[in-house]
């Protein structure tokens, strides 16, 4: 009798335990599955972020390490440096000169690749080729083009009687040259992303539009572009983040890598490098890193706000425009 109840109790306990296990399983396993990403992110994303903030509040030398706690002094110092503001200006200028033409050119290239071309794969791989080339190699090639004295472009200009452009002296030409390298590298990559988005547009929409009498141009603007909007927003946001952190191309633009004698093309990342590795002042370098981080967050938030508005209007556009088109035809 007692033995039987004991067995029962044990069985009940085991069942209860199994229930509890499966309960935990359901509740916890999903978190466990996604945890690797967050553990890695905490290790190589969150921790450096926090540590940089800690460093930025101290006197900190590259070799000597931690010095005195100085509060916000590093931030005050760098904000008072003209080179910080010059770098900020250069960063935005190079970013705009690269991002805007890049997105427009990438959409145009994608639209061409979307046609039924002969040797499709060849052309698609072709536009991706510059992306495979290392940025340093790109810089080496472009430096031959953009030499002040013996560069190919200036020698061509001279033969048609135009004066040499001082790529490494004047501000806008230097930004233009650097933006060209960035565009060379990233346009093809973005074009392929746009191409994928274009091919995801259901073909019946086009058929309907053509039956309604819309031309190629009209279908592109009223159908393709609105339906690609999420992809366009994605490309704009990623190229914003990349553009504000641009480093390789301006660093390779001359032999010193400091952004020119008057800091004509010094970007914020180059400025961080100069503070950290040339002046060995990790405190100030970390302060600028944090300022850059805040700037990127600000711009990303702005992007997000604008892009939400755009995607809201895009829904309207799709609903409204085909009806109008029908009305016209």
């Amino acid at each position, binding site marked *: 009798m007692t033995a039987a109840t004991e067995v029962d109790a044990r069985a009940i306990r085991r069942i209860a335990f199994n229930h509890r296990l499966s*309960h935990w*399983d359901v509740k916890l396993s999903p978190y466990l599955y996604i945890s690797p990403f967050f553990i890695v992110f905490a290790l190589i994303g969150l921790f450096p972020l926090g540590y940089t903030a800690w460093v930025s509040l101290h006197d900190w030398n590259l070799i000597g390490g931690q010095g005195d706690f100085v509060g916000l002094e590093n931030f005050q110092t760098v904000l008072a440096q003209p080179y910080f503001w010059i770098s900020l200006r250069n960063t935005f200028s190079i970013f705009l000169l690269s991002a805007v033409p890049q997105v427009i050119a990438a959409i145009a290239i994608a639209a061409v690749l979307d046609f039924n071309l002969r040797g499709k794969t060849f052309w698609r791989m072709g536009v991706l080729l510059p992306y495979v080339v290392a940025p340093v190699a790109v810089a080496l090639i472009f430096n031959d083009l953009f030499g002040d004295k*013996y*560069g190919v472009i200036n020698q061509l200009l001279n033969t048609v009687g135009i004066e040499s452009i001082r790529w*490494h002296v004047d501000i806008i030409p230097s930004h233009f040259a650097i933006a060209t390298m960035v565009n060379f590298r990233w346009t093809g990559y973005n074009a392929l992303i746009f191409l994928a988005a274009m091919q995801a547009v259901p073909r019946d929409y086009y058929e309907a539009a053509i039956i309604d009498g819309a031309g190629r141009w009209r279908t592109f603007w009223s159908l393709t572009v609105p339906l690609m909007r999420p992809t366009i927003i994605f490309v704009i946001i990623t190229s914003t983040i990349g553009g504000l952190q641009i480093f390789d191309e301006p660093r390779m633009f*001359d032999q010193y890598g*400091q952004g020119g*004698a*008057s800091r004509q093309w010094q970007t914020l990342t180059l400025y961080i490098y100069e503070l950290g*590795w040339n002046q060995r002042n990790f405190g100030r370098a970390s302060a600028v890193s944090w300022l850059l981080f805040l700037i990127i967050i600000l711009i990303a938030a702005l992007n997000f706000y604008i892009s939400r508005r755009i995607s809201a209007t895009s829904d309207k556009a799709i609903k409204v425009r085909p009806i109008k088109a029908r009305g016209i035809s």
Partner: protein
Amino acid sequence: MKRFPRPTIVAAVAGAAAFALLASGCAPAADSSESEGGKIKLTVATFNEFGYEGLFEQYMEENPDVTVVAKKAATSNEARDNLTTRLAAGSGLSDVEAIEVDWLPELLQYSDQFVDLTSDEVEGRWLEWKEEAATDADGNLIAYGTDIGPEGVCYRSDLFAAAGLPTDRAEVATLLGDSWDSYYAAGETFSAAGTNVPWFDSAGATWQGVINQFDNAYEENDGTVIATENPEVKAAYNSVLDASSTLSAHLQQWSDDWTASFQNDGFATMLCPGWMLGVIEGNAAGVTGWDIADTFPGGGGNWGGSYLTVPTQSEHPEEAKALAAWLTAPEQQLSAFASKGTFPSQVDALESPELLDSTNEFFNDAPVGQILATRAAAVEVTPFKGVKYFPINDAMQQALTRVEDASMTREQSWEQFVTDVNALG
């Protein structure tokens, strides 16, 4: 609630455990310098070309209980980043670490991180200024000298001939004289002949020669920055810019235009440390007429050169020190000179016939060994280079560039230099 089969939990736990293992596997593996079969393993980290490859073999044959493992970085910048990062981390350095003379100021600050290499065996082995630069305030020698960069003046004899100037290297040495004034005056004579070729490459390159002849240009020995008040610096700034306004090609050294100019008659002379001969030969391939004169304006000059150090992180400091001493002995440095052309800094090596008899075919068979040995002996000044020397010199180079590319006037650019130096804080 649907019941999940138990294996899920097991798999999840196993997965997480595997991940944890993976993560801990990323921790740096201890660099085992312990013996295989009772042998001591010594790692030697160098960069570019030290010419040591054959020497390591020889050392292992002569010392059977030692295994030498060579680590070679492609560029000195890479080696420097590696050295400073691992010094800061407190582990991971090789038993013998090669360094460049330019890094000494900041490494001397942390001289307690390096083994004191003073010993009777190496007493008086090097040129005095070479050894002095690696000695800290307490008299500890932290590095053994390997090579040096004594400077002469390289010139294009064909362009000299076109301008009606002498081309023989002894006569050219007399023409250039031994002061900056006579060097610039020769340039004016050259320009007056109407060859339309600039005299030297850039104000910045010339500045390097000038500034290394001052004991304390930018900083006092106690580290006080005097760059912006030192009248000598301002005077040198003005005199170099005076010369550059008529004589310079305005080609910043190492820029692409500078490299290309060797194929385009870019300039007629340049200040030329021993290792620059190889650079010129590479850039000017196919151009005939380069030669080197046994003189240097304003006294001697040295540009560059390296050392070997033994970090205190080494587990076998005594053995590492012995290896470094052996590698930097005159005989070994002569063999490195023979294999890679690194010019030795050891007094005995500089007197050896092997070095003195060497000539360079590209430079019109000039007796470069003889010339550079004389140039090394002419170096008198060991300029003080404190921690801020390089940022200040960078700022100065940029100041000179701003005037050369006409983006600022001489005065504006000086003001900017003062601001830059003050910002170093």
